[in-house]
C-alpha cells in the first residue's frame, strides 16, 4: 500500500482514514462495533464501565464463546451444528445425575464425584457429536438436517430422563469452584475459556487437521483429490464441536448448580450469529478463532449493556437483530475492499 504522504492536515486525516480502513480490512468490523458499543453503554450507564461489570460480561460470555468455537469448526467445514444446545442440555443432565449419584454413593470423596460427574457429562455430550459425525461423514446427511434431527432426538431423550425437573444433589464444591470460584480475582470459568481458545487456536492455525477443516469447507472435492481423508475430517469436526459444547455444558451446570434439560435452546442460533458476526463464512473455508472470541464477547456485551441501560426486552430483540445484519453488511463491504486490494 502507498506510504502515507506528509503534507498538511488533509493528508493527515486522509492517512488516518487510510489507516482505519486498513484496520477494518485486516480485523473486520467487530473491533469498531465493540468500541462503539463500549462508548455508547458507558455513556448510557454508570455501572457499565466498571471492572466488576466487565468481568461479569466476560464470565457470562464464556459459555457462548466455547460453544461458538465448536460451531466455528463446523462452519469452517461448510456445515452447521444445530444440536449444540441439546448437547449442552444432555451434558448438564447426565453430568449432574452422575455427580449426584457419585456424591451420594461416596460422600467423602467429593473430588472423585466431581471428576466422575464431569467425565460422564462430557462423554454423554460428546457421544451426541459422534452420532452427528457418523451421519454427516458416513451417510452423507446434510449437517443441517442431521444436527436438527439429532437435536430433536436428544432433547426428547433429555426430557425423558428428567421430566423437565432440574437435577439437584451435586456437591456444593462443584458450583462454588467451577461456577463461582475465582483465582487471582478472575472467575474460574474464564480460565477454562482461555485455555480452550488457545487450544482451538493452535489446532486451527497450527496443525494439519486445522488446515483440513478449511480445505474441506473450501472445496471438498479438491480436498479429496489432494489426498485428504475428508470423511474423517468431517467426523472429527462434529465430535470436537460436541466436545466443546459439552465442556461448556458442564461449566454451565456448575454455574446453575443444577442439571437442566431446558438450557441451551438459544445456543445454536446464537453461536452461529457470533461466528457470522466474526466473519466466518456460512459457505465454509473462511474464519478466524480470534474474531469468533470477539463475536461471542460482543453479543454478550451488547445484551449486558442494554440491560444496564434499561432497554426494554422487546427493543433489545430489535437492536440485536439489527446489529447482526449491520455487522454482516459491513463484512460484505470489507470483502469488496479486499477484492479491490487483491492482496
Amino acid at each position: 500500500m502507498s506510504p502515507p504522504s506528509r503534507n498538511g492536515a488533509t493528508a493527515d486525516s486522509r492517512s488516518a482514514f487510510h489507516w482505519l480502513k486498513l484496520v477494518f480490512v485486516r480485523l473486520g468490523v467487530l473491533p469498531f462495533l465493540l468500541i462503539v458499543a463500549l462508548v455508547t453503554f458507558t455513556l448510557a450507564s454508570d455501572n457499565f464501565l466498571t471492572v466488576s461489570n466487565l468481568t461479569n460480561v466476560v464470565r457470562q460470555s464464556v459459555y457462548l464463546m466455547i460453544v461458538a468455537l465448536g460451531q466455528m469448526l463446523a462452519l469452517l467445514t461448510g456445515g452447521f451444528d444445530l444440536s449444540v444446545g441439546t448437547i449442552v442440555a444432555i451434558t448438564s443432565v447426565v453430568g449432574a445425575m452422575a455427580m449426584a449419584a457419585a456424591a451420594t454413593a461416596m460422600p467423602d470423596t467429593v473430588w472423585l464425584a466431581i471428576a466422575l460427574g464431569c467425565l460422564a457429562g462430557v462423554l454423554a455430550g460428546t457421544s451426541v457429536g459422534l452420532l452427528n459425525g457418523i451421519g454427516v461423514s458416513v451417510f452423507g446427511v446434510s449437517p443441517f438436517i442431521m444436527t436438527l434431527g439429532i437435536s430433536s432426538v436428544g432433547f426428547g431423550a433429555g426430557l425423558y430422563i428428567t421430566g423437565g425437573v432440574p437435577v439437584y444433589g451435586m456437591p456444593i464444591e462443584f458450583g462454588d469452584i467451577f461456577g463461582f470460584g475465582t483465582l487471582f480475582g478472575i472467575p474460574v470459568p474464564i480460565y477454562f475459556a482461555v485455555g480452550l481458545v488457545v487450544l482451538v487456536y493452535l489446532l486451527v492455525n497450527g496443525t494439519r487437521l486445522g488446515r483440513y477443516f478449511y480445505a474441506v469447507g473450501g472445496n471438498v472435492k479438491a480436498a479429496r483429490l489432494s489426498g485428504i481423508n475428508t470423511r474423517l475430517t468431517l467426523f472429527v469436526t462434529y465430535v470436537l464441536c460436541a466436545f466443546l459444547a459439552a465442556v461448556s455444558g458442564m461449566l454451565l451446570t456448575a454455574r446453575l448448580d443444577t442439571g437442566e434439560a431446558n438450557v441451551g435452546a438459544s445456543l445454536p442460533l446464537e453461536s452461529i450469529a457470533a461466528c457470522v458476526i466474526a466473519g466466518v463464512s456460512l459457505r465454509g473455508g473462511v474464519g478466524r478463532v480470534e474474531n469468533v472470541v470477539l463475536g461471542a464477547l460482543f453479543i454478550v456485551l451488547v445484551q449486558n449493556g442494554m440491560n444496564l441501560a434499561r432497554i426494554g426486552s422487546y427493543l433489545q430483540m430489535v437492536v440485536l437483530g439489527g446489529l447482526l445484519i449491520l455487522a454482516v453488511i459491513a463484512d460484505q463491504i470489507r470483502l469488496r475492499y479486499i477484492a479491490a486490494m487483491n492482496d
Partner: protein
Amino acid sequence: AWYPYEVESWNPPFDMASPREKLSYVPLEKASKPWEICVSFPHMKDAYWLAVDYGVAEEAKDLGVKMQLVEAGGYTELEKQISQIEDCVAAGANAVIIGAISFDGLNNLVHEVRSKDIPVIDVINGMSSPELSAKSLVSFGEMGAKTGEFLAKMHPAGSDPVKVGWFPGPAGAGWVEAGNTGFLEAVKGSAVEVVETKYGDTGKEAQSALIEDTLGAYPDLDYIAGTAVTAEAAIPILRSRGLTDQIKVLSYYYTPGVDQGIRRGQILAAPTDSPVIQGRIAVDQAVRILEGQDFAKHVGPALFVVSQDNIADFDPGSTLAPDGFSPVFRVE
C-alpha cells in the same frame, strides 16, 4: 387422601371479579366407566407442569379413567396445541382438559369441541370462551398479587423504601402479563419500589444473566422477585457475591427448587396455587360432567404464601410432584 381440600368457588362463574365462597372440595370415589380424557398442556418442560401432570394422572388413576396427555412444546406453539387437541378429539376423547397457551386463541376450538358435546375444562391458565364447561384454576394475577402483598406488608408505606428487581418471565405469555400486573398493583402505594422489570425466557441461564446484569445496575437492591427459575438461579449468584444477607429472594409460584430454597432459608417466600390439586379437580370435574353429576363450575384452590415461618406445616403433595416422578402421558 388429598381431600377434602379448601377451594374457592366463583359465582357467577367464569368471572374472576365475582364474589367467591369457600368450599371443601371432595372428588368422586370412582368413575362409572373408564372415560377417555384428553389433557393438553403448553409444554412439559418444567416442574410446574410436571406437578399438574402428576395431579391429572393420579386423579385419573384414582377415578379409574383413561388419560391421554399432549404437550405443544412451548408457549409459541399455539397452532400445535390446537392440532393436538383436534387429534385428541379425533382419537375419541370424551372430555378435554386444556392448559391454554392463549387466552383467546383457543375459543374457536372450544366451540368446535363443545359442538360435539364434549366437555372442555380450563385448567391453570385460563381462556375467555363462554362455552367452557368448567374451570379449575386460580388467577396468576393473584399469584403475583399475593407475592406483592407479602412484600408490601413487610414494607408498608412510610417505612424505609426498599428496591425490588422484578423478573416476571417471558414477554408476551398470558400468565406472565397477568402475574406482572398483579404484582405491580399489589406493591403500589407501599414502600416497595420496583426499580427494574426484566422479561426473559424461563431458562435458568437466561434468568441468571438477567439477574447478574440487574445486580450490576443496582448494587443496592433489596429483593429479587420473579419466576421460580429466577429464584433458583439467584441463590448461587447471591451466595458467590456474598449478598445472601443483603438481598432476599421471592418467587411468585412454587417449584421443588423453591421448596428446597425456602426450607434452606435461601428463599424468603412463595405463594402456591396448588397445581396438583388444580389438575386433580379438573379431572374430577370432567368425570362429573360426563356422568351428569353435580359439579362446581369454577373453582380454584385457595392461595397461600409459604414462607420460612410456615414451611414446616406445609404439605408439598398439593403443589409438587413427588421426587422421582417421571412424566405420565398415558393412563390406561
